């Protein structure tokens, strides 16, 4: 299963980026292969409008099963994400990626 976190860095200890559309990175963990990879999304800072759908499109291409983020996607991004079968969990804004993963496994994160 492929789990994507919105993150401020590329390590397990990086903070979760509470924003979806303007997240700095995607941190991707595959819990079957235990493999990690990251996607740099920082170029989105140049985008004045429409960051949500842009980032959602990028996420969509990663074909994740689960998205873990802070505040949750806004309306436009949510419309895009609804086209896929991504389960979205929110409320991890104050955690590190590792903490967010643990919280997700214990069922402590809220489904969006």
């Amino acid at each position: 299963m492929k789990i994507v976190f919105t993150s401020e860095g590329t390590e397990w200890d990086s903070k979760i980026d509470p924003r979806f559309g303007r997240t700095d990175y995607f941190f991707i963990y595959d819990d079957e292969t235990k493999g990690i990879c990251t996607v740099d999304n920082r170029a989105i800072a140049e985008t004045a409008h429409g960051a949500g759908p842009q980032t959602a499109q990028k996420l969509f291409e990663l074909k994740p099963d689960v998205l873990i983020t802070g505040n949750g996607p806004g309306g436009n991004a949510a419309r895009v994400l609804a086209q896929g079968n991504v389960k979205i969990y929110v409320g991890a804004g104050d955690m590190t990626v590792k903490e967010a993963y643990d919280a997700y496994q214990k069922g402590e994160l809220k489904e969006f």
Partner: protein
Amino acid sequence: MIKIAVASGKGGTGKTTLSTNLASYLAETKPVVLTDLDVEEPNSGLFINGELTHHENKYKMVPQWKSDSCMLCGNCREVCNFHAIVQLVDQIMVFPQLCHSCYACSELCPSGSLPMTPEKMGELQEYQSGNLHFIESKLDVGQEQAVPLIAQTLRYVDEKYSEVNLKIYDSPPGTSCPVIEATKNADLVILITEPTPFGLHDLKLAVETMRELNKRFVVVINRYGIGNDDVVDYCMSENITVAAKIPNSREIAGLYSQGRLLYNDVPEFKAELDKIVDFISDLDREVGL
């Protein structure tokens, strides 16, 4: 022909008070068109008791995706400068709120799968009270872009009232796109502010904006007497004309809260309004030459 936009940096400093009083006062002797361009929350209408003479819906053009003919080439997404189109595996999604109606996606679509279709964005209403023609546009709830409706309202007024010499535009607050659109064709912009640190801060932003646009502008200070002298000092040091100083007055606040105009009841207000009228007459003569 003279077009006057009443704008401000800070909101709530008296744009509508000045616009409605100035327009009604001038309309006592000649035809005037007052247009409320603060389409996100128009309120000039609260002070104008006119008869409704016209109503129309306003539309903006947005692309609508036709799945049956689309070849999923992705051209539309690439040419959209506003990220209003997202391409997923086997579909195109259009976000009308991000669309600027530039037609690029539609015109450049090889299979004609994105025809432009009208989407209602707001309403325009027109009232008449003697010599005063009052036009107000209101954006529908949920619409995010004010500029297209402001642009269409300006076009409507230009076409319908090309004969009327004096046009006053109540502009939105701030310094962003809606303000630029509302002031860009004005001969004179009146920046109304209050003599407080907040008023001064936002006045500076508004002045910067008007200078960037090469606009002729003057300042009117409202609620003069509160705060401090920093706005006056700033205008002096920047060589900006202060056309009038409207006194802070409980009587004005009282009349305003009842939706009433001020110049008949408050002589001090009328005296300041006369200064602005004189300034406009001088400008009219100059522009007319």
